[in-house]
């Protein structure tokens, strides 16, 4: 039941949060306690995952022949560590942000957040497709109140768009699962691919592939299914930070990694040429998103397009089918998270402190908020893939894997997009520090509740860049996950 604890702790917290609406400090206390507990529970699962004996929790039968089952394997623990760890920091940040802006509906906010995290860990540990779908759909519905938080007509429209995309994707996933179940008699994820799927007819396999592509592709923001993400930036920044840079979209790319590695498997992907198709979509997304980022003046939208691009690094890594690339993808899933959340935290701090949202208004901001912009600078350097930040590590392995697979075009793409990243992020840092400010004289840094988390994530990114295995063993986890695809360790 050790695998179940992380999922349940935040569900319990959600109930407690709803009950403590009248006492904000108690309410926030539940969030922080649950976040801490969840992270600890996931950490406890780390050794077993690395040793190839993942903790399991098999619950009731949810459909004849299929049980609600959790399995904390290396890939799942990697994702769960990222989500739960960053939840702690995001919760602290949320408190600063929501109180700083005197936002209404905080109880709903914190409760929804808790349920989202529960669902995210459920997705991470799901041992079969039906469990995966269950938590995936809960994640969709639990994020809705967060997207729509501001309750303005614009927010409501964004919420509808979000639901339209994600519910459609959910339905396609159900179709995919139904076909897989009929074809193979099982829904269990198997490292290296589900055995029965190889035996199903080519038409069936193709249909399943496209259904899955759309099904997980929406949350993974693969173009052209990415449309919901920029619009969803209407949500409060901590929501954008965690959910859209870490939990929701990472659940999408996690889904891609699961489907490629544990449903189809490298052999089947290569056999039918699915890897090429997936790589094509991913590559196009990386390029287009990076280019589109240049055109966004709204800082959060620029960051959204940047996320879309980076998510497709992970998809590309999966599509390359090389173990090194897969490991790189898993690492980037974790490392991009710390970098992107830093940038979003900075954007939020700037908004709370100075009420500025657009890049063109950020001149001289660095002088008023040096810590924030320093963290932003670190994040930008990391996203451009420059060592010693952790963004380099993931990209390095992706590149190695691409070269090993003989796909040099992918290597050029990785390098090129790194340059593009620098192109749309560095000028922000430059104007913040070196251009004369307008209206920022005498303004001071944002509240410590905001600045401490963003510095923490920035420093974390630096530390993980230097020692990727420190503490949480992301490097080991990634390698174990990739190795399991060869049919060795579970």
């Amino acid at each position: 039941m050790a695998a179940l604890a992380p999922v349940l702790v935040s569900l319990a917290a959600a109930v407690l949060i709803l009950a403590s609406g009248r006492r904000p400090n108690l309410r926030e206390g539940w969030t922080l306690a649950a976040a801490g507990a969840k992270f600890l529970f996931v950490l406890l699962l780390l050794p077993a995952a690395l040793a190839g004996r993942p903790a399991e929790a098999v619950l009731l039968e949810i459909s004849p022949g299929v049980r609600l089952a959790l399995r904390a394997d290396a890939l799942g623990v990697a994702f769960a560590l990222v989500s739960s760890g960053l939840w702690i920091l995001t919760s602290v940040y949320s408190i600063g942000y929501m109180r700083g802006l005197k936002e209404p509906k905080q109880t709903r906010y914190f409760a929804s957040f808790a349920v989202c995290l529960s669902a995210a860990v459920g997705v991470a540990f799901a041992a079969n497709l039906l469990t995966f779908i269950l938590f995936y759909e809960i994640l969709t519905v639990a994020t809705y109140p967060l997207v729509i938080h501001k309750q303005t007509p614009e927010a409501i429209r964004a919420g509808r768009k979000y639901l339209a995309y994600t519910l459609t994707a959910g339905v396609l996933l159900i179709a995919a699962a139904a076909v897989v179940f009929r074809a193979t008699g099982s829904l269990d994820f198997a490292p290296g691919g589900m055995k029965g799927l190889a035996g199903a007819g080519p038409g069936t396999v193709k249909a399943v592939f496209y259904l899955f592509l759309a099904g997980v592709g929406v949350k993974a923001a693969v173009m052209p299914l990415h449309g919901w993400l920029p619009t969803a930036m209407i949500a409060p920044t901590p929501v954008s930070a965690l959910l859209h840079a870490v939990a929701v979209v990472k659940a999408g790319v996690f889904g891609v990694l699961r489907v490629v590695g544990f449903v189809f498997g490298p052999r089947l992907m290569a056999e039918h040429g699915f890897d090429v198709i997936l790589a094509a979509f991913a590559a196009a997304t990386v390029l287009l998103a990076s280019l589109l980022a240049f055109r966004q003046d709204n800082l959060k939208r620029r960051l959204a397009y940047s996320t879309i691009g980076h998510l497709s690094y992970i998809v590309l890594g999966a599509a390359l089918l090389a173990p090194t690339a897969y490991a790189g993808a898993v690492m980037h899933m974790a490392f991009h998270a710390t970098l992107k959340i830093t940038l979003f935290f900075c954007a939020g701090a700037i908004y709370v402190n100075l009420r500025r949202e657009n890049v063109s208004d950020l001149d001289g901001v660095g002088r008023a908020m040096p810590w924030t912009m320093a963290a932003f600078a670190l994040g930008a350097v990391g996203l451009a893939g420059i060592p010693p930040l952790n963004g380099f590590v993931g990209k390095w392995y992706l590149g190695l894997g691409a070269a090993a697979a003989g796909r040099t075009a992918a290597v050029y793409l990785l390098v090129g997009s790194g340059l593009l990243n620098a192109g749309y992020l560095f000028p922000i840092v430059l104007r913040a520090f070196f251009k004369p400010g307008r209206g920022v004289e005498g303004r001071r840094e944002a509240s410590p509740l905001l600045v401490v988390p963003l510095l923490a994530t920035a420093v974390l990114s630096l530390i993980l860049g230097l020692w990727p295995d420190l503490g949480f063993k992301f490097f080991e986890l990634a390698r174990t996950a990739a190795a399991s695809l060869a049919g060795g360790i579970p």
Partner: protein
Amino acid sequence: MPILNSSPALPVVLLLPTAIAIPIVALLRKRLAYILTVAVMAVVTVISALNMAKVLDGGPIHYWLGGWFPPIGIEYVLDRLSAFVILVVNAVAFLVLAHSRRLVDREIPDPGKHVPYYAVALLMLCGFNGILVTGDFFNLYVWLEICSLSLYGLVAVGSRKSAVAAFRYLIMGTVGACFYLLGLGFLFTVTGTLNMADLKAIFPQVAGQPTAVIGLVLMVVGFGLKMALFPLHGWLPDAYTQAPSSSSALIAPIGTKVAAYVLIRVLFFVFGVEYVRQAVPVTQVIGGLAAAGILFGSVMAMAQKELKRMLAYSSVAQIGYIGLGIGLANPLGFVGAVLHVMNHAVMKALLFLAAGHFRMKLGHSTVPEFDESVRRRMPWTTAAFAVGALSMVGLPPAVGFFSKWYLALGAVGRSNWVFLGVILLSSLLNAVYFFRVIERLYFVRGKTTAGSPEDAPAAVRAEAPWPMLVPVLILAAAIIGLGLLNAVVVKGILAAAVPPGMG
């Protein structure tokens, strides 16, 4: 106990005299009508549960009324399918009737009708129980007439508009019953028997004759109309909308399901899967019409502004799921259809009861006039409604997801991609109109609450009283609980109820 040997007949035997006794007893105290109703429904539900257990243990139970054997006597048969549907019908009816007192007092203007309401409701349930347990075609017609007339009565009581809706329902319903009787007559002439098991034995000999085929088709049309299978659904929207909320909550979850049960019973257990698929492809037609009904109902529901009308069209779509399961005619389709009988009963009862709460406390159930203040005033009702709505959309682990899952598996099994597409598309269409309501209830700023801090004073609270809340919350809990435990129902009961020759 000797009385338990007649347990198949007990529900009917208890309900009929009680229904007749209610107006008499209520002369002493009006409240007794309600109390007696709830009491007898509780007893009947317990008996249904015991019967289910008995059938699971020992196999089908046969009971011959008066000890006279067929083909002269009337036979009652309890097998897994009928015991299951009976349990669902009685349990849901019990919860709704337990809830009904205040809605009846509020929504039915003429106080002289309050007592007869309960009598008629019990008569209707008596009719339902009879239909579900009988093994004789003509006995089925008798119960059908009893429950139909009661149904019309339950719809008609209320405002003047209710009477018009009920009249339309009466006309169409009587036509449907006549079709059934006509079909039965044709079948009787070729087979010489009215007993279901008998007819099943004799039918293969006469299967080729045009009379037999016509008889089958007429029966199907008759019950298709009672089931509100598209395009024979015309009576439903008005009837469900104009009926008082307690009636809607009673008939919407159950009425059409009983008709669907008869269709399943007759098609698969009497005529046989082989015949209705290959020789006379009735199932294909039903499946096609059901698919059309799903789309039609969902689209029409999206266009509705009034909550009850929206739920009514939604019901047309949901009946389509059951029809789709019948159309697939394979084990998973069958399981999906029968499971949906239970799922939809629980979900729709909850939704209509919640609508009743809204009407009672707000004076209306018009969706565009909902806003956050509704949630503030009635948080529990709104939360329960949200659970029901999300289940209808198909969010796991709520019960609604699993009907679609099994039907999807059944459609894949028949390689029927159109049906699969319809099932999944309908989830999205459901999401449109249900999320619209959720959006309004939770996220649209009220005129009085705009900009106010989140926790309004408790004085604003105007939740429904707890005797009304308890059944609603029980139903909401059932939606999640039965969802998580659906494999128990499927494996324990439904899998073994699959008709012979299927799959």
